[in-house]
């Protein structure tokens, strides 16, 4: 008789399904993969930003230690000599065209530990101001990235090196495509007044490292900027690209060479900047080099 359908029972939420084993495995694999992805991203953040903070603190300490050592009364016997100790700062570098706040303490040695504090001097290469090649390596990404922008250095830009007794002013050499048309002395930009190309492509290449031919030949390939293979160590020899030429062979130019990785984030090549010393001002004169005002 009672044919009326009883009203449907209010819908119950389905009981929570217990995940099958397969589901759990697949989900766990997915979670692990996502986690690894996040770890890799975190590593990029670490490389590019976090190492900068760590290095900034170490660079500050190295600078303070340098200041402390320079304050000590100078020993008249060796007042001009530059003393270097592995892993310790012995000089400072400034690049006015990168801004007034661009300064780094330079440490002795190019091991990882030195380079994470600041630019490092290749052991055995010349010291600042001396004939030969004062060569420095620096990081381009992270670790304070002192050499991040050295690809933007133009010919004749000043790189100032400060030691306990002197200021040394180096200027970036003319680049390969500028050498041929390098203007006569009175027609140059004021910055370039003292910068002569060391490079002369008109000279024969086959004899360029000949010990008796002298500077004009030796420096045939030394230009303001170049990109080389990582194993090309001759860019930091006393005469770049002529490792066989020794300082005893004759007068050498006083060069400064910067090396860093290239392209950014890669170690496939090295970016090299060569500069030549144009002036030295003893600190006893009490003035700073006028090149500090060159902001562009």
């Amino acid at each position, binding site marked *: 008789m009672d044919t009326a359908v009883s009203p449907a029972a209010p819908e119950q939420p389905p009981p929570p399904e217990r995940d099958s084993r397969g589901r759990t495995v697949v989900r766990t694999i997915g979670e692990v993969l996502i986690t690894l992805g996040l770890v890799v991203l*975190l*590593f990029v953040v670490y*490389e590019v930003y976090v190492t900068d903070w760590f290095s900034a603190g170490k660079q500050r300490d190295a600078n303070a230690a340098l200041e402390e050592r320079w304050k000590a009364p100078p020993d008249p016997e060796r007042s001009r000599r530059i003393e270097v100790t592995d892993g310790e700062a012995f000089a400072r570098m400034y690049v006015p065209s990168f801004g007034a706040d661009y300064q780094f303490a330079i440490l002795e040695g*190019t091991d990882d530990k030195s380079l994470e504090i600041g630019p490092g001097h290749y052991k055995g290469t010349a010291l600042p101001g001396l004939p030969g090649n004062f060569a420095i390596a620096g990081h*381009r*990404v992270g670790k304070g990235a002192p050499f991040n922008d050295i690809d933007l250095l133009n010919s004749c830009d000043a790189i100032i090196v400060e030691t306990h007794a002197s200021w040394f002013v180096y200027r970036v050499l003319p680049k390969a495509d500028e050498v041929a048309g390098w203007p006569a002395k009175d027609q140059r930009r004021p910055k370039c007044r003292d910068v002569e190309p060391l490079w002369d492509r008109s000279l024969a290449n086959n004899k360029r490292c000949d010990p008796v031919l002298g500077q004009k030949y030796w420096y045939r390939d030394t230009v303001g900027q170049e990109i080389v293979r990582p194993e*090309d160590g001759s860019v930091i020899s006393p005469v770049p690209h002529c490792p066989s030429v020794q300082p005893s062979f004759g007068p050498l130019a006083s060069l400064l060479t910067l090396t860093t990785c290239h392209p950014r984030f890669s170690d496939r090549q090295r970016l090299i900047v060569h500069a030549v010393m144009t002036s030295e001002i003893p600190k006893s004169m009490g003035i700073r080099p006028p090149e500090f005002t060159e902001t562009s």
Partner: protein
Amino acid sequence: MYGWIWRQLPGPTAVKVLEATVLVLGVIALLMFVVFPWVEPKLPFNNVTTTP
């Protein structure tokens, strides 16, 4: 995995959130201060020197 960790955390939800945050920060600190500095020199992309 994360669900399992969440279920292992003791206490009410608010406490669980706090515990989870501490765990995440701990893992990040471990990575930043121990794992990454150890891994980094073994990776090839930050060589800046030339070697003859």
